[in-house]
């Protein structure tokens, strides 16, 4: 193999001269982090809301949430992303569509990716919230109601605090997945980490170094998130209660 390794390439300047190739990588990392974190917030909000709706007695509300989950789970993420980016701007009211198209291209890509990733992951969070709620004994709900709580109060003070603690491990997986899935946004041109990796391959002709660097960065993200979530789990653990198992 007559490949010429050159790890110093990261410190070389890019053609525009404004930054180094390492700088490109780091900017890609920034975009990945910003996209994943903002999508995660959307996912948590949507997932919590839909997960609660899935478990209420009202059949209409429960059905709407089920519909949301099935739609977002049965269409590939890439297809969903393209629909948000190419289709939505065309079929929403003209004023909204035009306002969107007038945005800077980066913002257009970022917004589409953020909403897409958020709602996609939200469907999965919903199913976990639902299973967390269902894993609680029905007596907890009765106990809350018997004290005079309304059903919303029972969810807020009794059911959700325990359900969320129970699902912290699978929620951690979903959080990790969001960072990985954010790479799909490279297909609509968003210059996140994977896209920058590809740029580096194109510009530097040092594909191995570029890809190894990007892979290592993804693995670092993975490890950091896992450590953080373990800390969170340890902090909210209920004394005397074995990891949430009944």
């Amino acid at each position, binding site marked *: 193999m007559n490949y010429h390794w050159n790890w110093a390439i990261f410190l070389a300047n890019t053609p525009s001269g404004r930054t180094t190739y390492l700088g490109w990588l780091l900017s890609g990392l920034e975009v990945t982090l910003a996209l994943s974190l903002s999508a995660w917030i959307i996912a948590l909000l949507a997932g919590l809301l839909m997960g609660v709706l899935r478990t209420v007695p009202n059949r209409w509300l429960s059905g709407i949430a089920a519909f949301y989950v099935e739609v977002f789970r049965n269409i590939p993420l890439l297809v969903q992303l393209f629909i948000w980016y190419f289709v939505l701007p065309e079929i929403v009211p003209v004023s909204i569509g035009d306002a969107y198209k007038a945005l800077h291209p980066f913002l257009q890509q970022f917004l589409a990716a953020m909403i897409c990733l958020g709602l996609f992951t939200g469907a999965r969070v919903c199913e976990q919230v639902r299973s967390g709620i269902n894993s609680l004994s029905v*007596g907890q709900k*009765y106990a809350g109601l018997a004290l005079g709580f309304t059903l919303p109060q029972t969810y807020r003070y009794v059911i959700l605090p*325990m359900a969320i603690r129970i699902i912290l491990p699978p929620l951690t997986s979903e959080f990790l997945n969001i960072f990985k899935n954010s790479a799909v946004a490279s297909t609509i041109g968003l210059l996140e980490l994977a896209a920058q990796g590809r740029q580096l391959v194109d510009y530097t002709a040092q594909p191995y170094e570029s890809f190894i660097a990007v892979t290592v960065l993804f693995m670092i993200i993975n490890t950091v998130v896992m450590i953080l979530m373990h800390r969170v789990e340890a902090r909210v653990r209920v004394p005397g*209660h074995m990891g949430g198992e009944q």
Partner: protein
Amino acid sequence: MISIKNVSKHYGSFQVLADCSAEVKKGDVIVICGPSGSGKSTLIKCVNGLEPFQQGAIAVNGISVGDPKTNLSKLRAHVGMVFQNFELFPHMSVIDNLCIAQTKVLGRSRAEAVERARKLLDRVGLLVQADKFPGQLSGGQQQRVAIARALAMDPICMLFDEPTSALDPEMVNEVLDVMVGLAQEGMTMMVVTHEMGFARKVANRVIFMDEGRIVEDAPEEDFFSKPRSERAQQFLSKILHH
């Protein structure tokens, strides 16, 4: 205070309660007993509207439980309930378990709620555990906390659904003692239980249920000395031979 008139409930094709009627006056201590599956737990859960019923009427202090216009949350705030599996909230300390409904439902201030809670914990002998979490307590301790939690709402009556059935034998008495104390103070109580010793001590009436029906409803001495129905006789002979 509690009036149950011709209540029937079915789950699909299964008849859970059939034409049940009973009257509970203020200060009454009613023990409901019967074989498993006789509907006793369901009946008591109908009293505070936790279980819906298809026919009949239940009124607590004149307020109809089955009426769709009734604010059930307000009603339940004044009816205390104690569950077989204690059902303390595991993510809250003991003192918080007692205070949360006081503050969020009755609107008391935190200071007021804590004071009331500490008095009640002291009464059931658990003041020193106030800052512990339910998972750190034994079953008997948890159930006493559960009783205190229900009492913190200053209820007009208390419903008990097999309060000692999930307890190890050596912890049953500590809970029964609290319940006896309550009865002697004049609390109106409906207690689903197998503990006949408790019934003999403080109950003034015993209701015997079988297969969803109220088979007997008699003053306590009458029930134990001369039960009228054959089913009740069989039941008593089986459980009193311990």
